[in-house]
């Protein structure tokens, strides 16, 4: 498979995974030049709420989280302009911009930061490969933030609460 073909397939895979989220996220822009660097994807949910989607490699989630917050701040005031340019998008500019950070795994500090900001500001999603060129996203549910002085969290198998990435 050519590099170009593979690139197209990988982008399609992530866009497809976004569409399978609940609620689904429809990609409206790719590779957007934001503040200093580029935004991987910009997406909207069925209500018009906008998300900046950044993909981080393993170990890069914390700096990418900071970068994503900067891109949120950059994009939010531009949404009214985007609505004028493309009224059919019906972007809910008044709801601001959420960051969806996608990574194969997350540092406890990134989780704690996301928890502190709240799910309306930042959501984290684990990227799971499905076969050769397909991917799946698993949204991490909000939970108590991990204080910096707390010892490593116990094994999730010891949790007694109900867990699922699904929603009704």
């Amino acid at each position, binding site marked *: 498979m050519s590099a170009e073909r*593979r*690139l197209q397939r*990988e*982008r399609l*895979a*992530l866009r497809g995974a976004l569409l*399978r989220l609940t609620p689904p996220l429809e990609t409206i822009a*790719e*590779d957007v*030049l934001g503040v200093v*660097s*580029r935004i*991987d*994807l910009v997406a909207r949910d069925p209500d018009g709420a906008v998300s900046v989607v950044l*993909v*981080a*490699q*393993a*170990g890069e989630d914390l700096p990418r989280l900071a970068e994503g917050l900067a891109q949120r701040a950059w994009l939010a005031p531009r949404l009214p302009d985007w609505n004028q340019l493309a009224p059919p998008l019906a972007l809910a500019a008044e709801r601001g911009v959420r960051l969806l950070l996608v990574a*194969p*795994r997350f540092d406890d500090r990134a989780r704690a930061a996301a928890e502190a900001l709240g799910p309306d500001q930042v959501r984290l999603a*684990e*990227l*799971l*490969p*499905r*076969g*050769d*060129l397909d*991917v*799946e996203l*698993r949204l991490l549910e909000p939970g108590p933030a991990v204080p910096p002085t707390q010892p490593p969290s116990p*094994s*999730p*198998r*010891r*949790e*007694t*609460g*109900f*867990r*699922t*990435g*699904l*929603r*009704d």
Partner: protein
Amino acid sequence: MARELADVLHHFLGDPLSGERLGPASLALLSEPEDAFAVAVAWNLAHELARQGLAVAWVTALADEELLPPDATPGLTRLLAPAQDLSGLSRAVSEASAKLAASPAPGLVLVRVPPGWIAPGPAAGRVLAWTLQLVGPDLEPRGRAISIARRVLAACATARLGAVVHEVRSVREAERAFTALARECAERSEGRLASYGVLLDDAELYRSLIARRPLALLRPEARAARAVADVASLLRSDFACDVG
């Protein structure tokens, strides 16, 4: 230069645990031999875990499982073991673990264990270290699950107990059922129970069995397929936490 999505995606496609080398572990799905739903779940879970990057060995000791096609998913291997008891299963699990040890991907042995085979002894420590039950929401299946949990802990005091809720119509209903089950389990001092999510639309899993195709391939858009993937994700996540 602009950062391209493809520049980062390909680094972890096919490398879900970032190159960590994890030792093979085993997961025992506790279910009656004639439980076709459990066969469907075990088969679909094995495929899903393999799709998520694990090297999975499915030890099948029960005749009905031998009818299923073995090669629908790369990364999934089958080991047919004519075991008659937990000791036989333990030998098969060890053999499967040895095979997985050569794999570059982290390995997990999945085995279905009839509750009637649960017995104390060295095999219990090998096979029952991590167990999973499929539990309905009503009082009777919850009571049965607690009874089985008690027997597991009597055979292997350090066993981890996990449950997946099914026969429910919604996530909310599943949460209520699991909360009740976990509370009852704790009240009867049967250890702490870990949640591994919910299976929805059980009929879809039966259909995959009849069609002899994993749900992820047969109907990837179905709610049931997403639920199986979610259960597999939770298992994989705990597997990585414990062994990594």
